[in-house]
C-alpha cells in the first residue's frame, strides 16, 4: 500500500527538491545521498537548518502544514535518491495503517527532541563547543558535509570554524 503511493526521484548534486516560494506538499524519505535545507537572508547569506542523509526525512513542515510558500531551499549536496509521498496519500496511509501512523508520530517526537537540543546548544554553547557538540552527536555528517555549509549550520562564520578546527586539531 505504501509502495503504491510512493514515487522515487533521483537528484544530481546541486539540484533542488524544493525552492523558496514554492509550496511543499510531500513527505520525503532519503534513500541515498544527502540533502541540505537552508534559508537565504536579505544579504544573500545562507543559513542551514538541516542535513538529511540516508534513512532520514526531509521537507518543510511549515509549508506542508500551513500551505504557505516555503522560505527554504532543499538541495542535494550529493547525488541522491528520495522517496516522495504526497501529503493527501500520506494521510490516507496513516489512517489505514495505525502502526505506520504511530511510527511517524514517534519520529516526529524524536525530531522535536533534536530541535530542542539544538536550541539548547545554540543558546548555551560557545562557537568551539558548538562545533565539538556537532562532531560528537553527528560524526557521520561532520566528515561528509562541506565546511562552509557546516559553519552556516552552526551559525558561525567559516573563518571562525577554520580557527576552531585548527585549535582542536592541536589539542
Amino acid at each position, binding site marked *: 500500500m505504501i509502495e503504491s503511493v510512493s514515487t522515487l526521484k533521483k537528484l544530481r548534486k546541486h539540484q533542488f527538491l524544493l525552492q523558496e516560494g514554492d509550496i511543499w506538499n510531500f513527505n520525503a524519505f532519503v534513500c541515498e545521498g544527502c540533502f541540505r535545507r537552508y534559508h537565504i*537572508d536579505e544579504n544573500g547569506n545562507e543559513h542551514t*537548518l538541516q542535513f538529511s542523509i540516508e534513512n532520514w526525512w526531509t521537507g518543510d513542515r511549515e509549508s506542508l502544514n500551513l500551505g504557505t510558500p516555503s522560505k527554504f531551499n532543499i538541495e542535494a549536496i550529493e547525488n541522491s535518491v528520495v522517496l516522495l509521498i504526497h501529503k493527501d496519500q500520506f494521510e490516507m496511509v496513516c489512517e489505514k495503517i495505525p502502526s505506520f501512523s504511530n511510527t511517524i508520530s514517534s519520529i*516526529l517526537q524524536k525530531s522535536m527532541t533534536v530541535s*530542542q537540543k539544538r536550541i*539548547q546548544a*545554540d*543558546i*548555551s554553547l560557545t562557537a568551539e563547543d558548538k562545533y565539538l557538540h556537532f562532531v560528537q552527536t553527528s560524526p557521520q555528517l561532520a566528515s561528509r558535509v562541506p565546511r562552509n555549509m557546516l559553519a552556516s549550520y552552526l551559525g558561525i562564520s567559516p573563518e571562525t570554524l577554520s580557527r576552531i578546527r585548527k585549535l582542536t586539531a592541536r589539542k
Partner: protein
Amino acid sequence: MTDHFYNYLKKLFPITEEEFEMISAVTIQKSLRKKKFLLQEEDIWRNNAFVSKGLLRIYSIDDRGLEHILGLSVENNWTGDIESYTSGMASNLNIDALEDSEILLISKDNFKDLLKKIPGLDTAMKKLFEISFIESQNRILSNISLSAEQKYHNFTNTFPEISGRIPQHMIASYLGITAETLSRIKTHNTIQK
C-alpha cells in the same frame, strides 16, 4: 479553572460534555507559587502540563552555573520536557514558575488513554505538536541567522505578551546573548528614537 480549560478545548475541537468529563476526571489542578518548581533536573517528566494562569520557564543550568532558557509558557500553553517524557530518562531541565501560576496536569498514561478514546483530541494535539515543531525550527533559524539586536526585536514582536512580564536578563538568557549585550542594544535603541 475547569471552565477555562473547557473553553480552551472547545476552541481546539468540537468537544462533547461526556468527553470533557472524561478529561476532567483525570486532570489534577496544581497551584504553584512564584519560584516554585514543577520539574527539577534528574527527575523524570511524566505529565502533560497545561498553564491556565501565570508564567513558567523551562531551562538548563550549565557547568558554570549559568541558566539557559529553552522555553517560556504563558496561559493557554503547554509545558514539559519532551525528551524525558518520550524516553523515560531523567531530565536535565528545570521548570519553575516566574509568577504565581495554576497548572493542570494529566499523567502520560491517562493522556494516552484519552487520545485513544477521543479522536478529536488526538487530531488537535497532533496539530499543536506540528505548530510547536514549526516554532522550534523558526527559533533555530533566528538563532543561527540573526544579529543579537535582530533576535531581540524578533522576540519582542513575536511574544509581546511575554517580553513585558519577565526581567531583561531572562530575555537575554532565552536569546543566548549576554545581559550586557542586551543592555547595550536597548540603550542604543533609546538613543536612536
